[in-house]
């Protein structure tokens, strides 16, 4: 197996998808000629031509709306929104058209498109290049939302997303593109090379949507995480020597509730972590589900470790980011109860 960064794994997935199905088209701002600002589509235009991998104007609403039309017609568009922070002009199209087409046409039309977006912080992007808007999508019936945490999953989940007959929001934690960032921003960057989940199988395979993965089994507490926070949680659990089970949700919707409930029933304690702001974040949904399904097994209230309820900051990025210290404090607090 080849060792890949998350960027290479995503590029490989797109290559495999385009090679398998002529109806897969890949496009977005700077996606064709330039190969994408994060280089995820590099080489695809040269390989598949300008009809199948191309640049769009900078108009997110139009890009997504056009993709929905293509998908309703029968193609499988996989488009890139350059940063998740740019998706808001397209939100109407995602919510009112993509997510709702199947229901209001009684299944006659669907919108099988995949919207890839780099998400999250950790790159000093400030307000408009760092946000984690996943809860805006999990709140919408008719969408699936995926957040991979490593190259192997990124490829398998992206292939599953493209093949899926429903619209999929595919959020790529941009701080993970080049390495398993564990929140220790003061340390040298760790590359993907050497990480077991950077070993990516060649050719086609897919990871089913809706299945979580236990990254570290444990008995003392459960950490529910996705994206970058999986690595933050793993590093902190290891550093403190806590026997916590770290669950990587991988897809937020559909959610692997069975895996979550089994873990929390076993440990009796739960910490939910995400980069996005606290209020009405996806962690609120997780906390509610845990208390609904595991109430009599809980030894402590469910704790949430998240970004603060502020705009994503520039200068105070590491005050905002729910790094190892905050995850560890929450775990310690939950374990003391």
């Amino acid at each position, binding site marked *: 197996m080849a060792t890949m960064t998350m960027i290479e794994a995503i590029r490989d997935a797109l290559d495999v998808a385009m090679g398998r199905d002529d109806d897969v*088209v890949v496009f977005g701002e700077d996606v064709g000629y330039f190969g994408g600002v994060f280089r995820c589509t590099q080489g695809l235009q040269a390989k598949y031509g300008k009809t199948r991998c191309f640049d769009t104007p900078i*108009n997110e609403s139009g890009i997504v709306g*056009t993709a929905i039309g*293509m998908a309703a017609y029968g193609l499988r568009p996989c488009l890139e929104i350059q940063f998740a922070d740019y998706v808001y002009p397209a939100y109407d199209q995602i919510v009112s*058209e993509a997510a709702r087409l199947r*229901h209001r*046409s009684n299944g006659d*039309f669907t919108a099988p498109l995949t919207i890839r977006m780099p998400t999250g912080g950790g790159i000093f992007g400030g307000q408009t290049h760092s946000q984690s808007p996943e809860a805006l999508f999990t709140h919408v019936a008719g969408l699936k939302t995926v957040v991979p945490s490593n190259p192997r999953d990124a490829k398998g989940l992206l292939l599953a997303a493209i093949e899926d007959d429903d619209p999929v929001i595919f959020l790529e934690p941009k701080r993970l593109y080049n390495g398993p960032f564990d929140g220790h921003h003061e340390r040298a960057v760790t590359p993907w090379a050497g990480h077991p989940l950077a070993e990516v199988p060649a050719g086609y395979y897919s990871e089913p949507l809706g299945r979580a993965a236990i990254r570290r089994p444990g008995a003392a507490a459960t950490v529910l995480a996705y994206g970058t926070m999986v690595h933050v949680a793993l590093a902190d659990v290891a550093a403190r020597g806590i026997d916590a089970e770290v669950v990587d949700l991988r897809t937020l919707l559909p959610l692997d509730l069975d895996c979550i409930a089994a873990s929390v029933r076993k440990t009796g304690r739960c910490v939910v972590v995400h980069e996005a702001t606290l209020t009405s974040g996806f962690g609120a949904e997780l906390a509610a589900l845990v208390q609904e399904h595991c109430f009599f097994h809980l030894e402590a209230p469910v704790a949430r470790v998240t970004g603060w309820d502020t705009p994503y900051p520039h200068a105070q990025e590491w005050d905002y980011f729910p790094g190892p210290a905050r995850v560890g404090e929450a775990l310690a607090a939950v374990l003391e109860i």
Partner: protein
Amino acid sequence: MARTRRKRKLDEPKPVPATEELLKYYNDMLMIRRFEEKAGQLYGMGLIGGFCHLYIGQEAVVVGMQAAIGEGDAVITSYRDHGHMLACGMAPKGVMAELTGRSGGYSKGKGGSMHMFSREQSFFGGHGIVGAQVPLGTGIAFGLKYRETDRVCLTYFGDGSANQGQVYESFNMAELWKLPVIYIIENNQYAMGTSVQRSSAQTELFRRGESFGIPGEQVDGMDVLAVKAAGEEAVAWARSGRGPYILEMKTYRYRGHSMSDPAKYRTKEEVQRVRSERDPIDRMREFLVTGAHSDEVALKAVDRDIKKAVTEAAEFAQNSPEPATSELYTDILLEA
């Protein structure tokens, strides 16, 4: 390259189709009118709830455009969509039953007046968000070109939508990629209660594609033959790979924006004047009789058949069972 940008003259000579076709246009326009009148009645009786946007007055636009396209061409429009569905060949019973929210409706009652579809008839829906269907129509045209068909997509929107940003995003992409899409602006002169003059800096909407290099024409949307003639030119343009085309149909809706519209923004006299001077169905009827294509007796028989079909649709729409509550959880995702 020189491009057409013009207002089609009201008295411009038009080719006269065969009698059989003329009668079909008359029949189709009258079918829409009577269907909409019945929908208005059912609404008044409380059998249709919520929103219901009637197409009365605008019939020539969709019937004329439908006459300009063929098998496999796609159609998408906004929420004033009952006429488009009937013109596309969708069954009056299924449309009316969707209005009453019954399981016999095209969307099994999940869509309602604004949201019906038929893949079989290449009708990509009624869409309830002003202007949101315009990029979809552009994407459908992308699909038609990508699959190397010679088909086109008729993308309808109103004078209100014409001020939406995504319309211009669509114009840009369609011309950039030479997509086979015809943008039909149904200018009925009022975006709900706001006239074009009160909302638009450039009121000649056929010129809205100028900066993109998209040809545009203004057409008398109350004359089915003028619509068809302009439509055929636009369709030929798009089919031949030259990209998008804009047709501004000057039309008029006689009824309110929706059923709850007090219509304080225009005078009764204005509505009456259009009805008596420009009505597309009256004009066609007169054309048929004076041109000896038909006579009063034959046209009465057409009226009678339509009335019967509409009555049957209304009965079906009232008798079709309401959908089960469990339908709420179907067709959200492929697998629940």
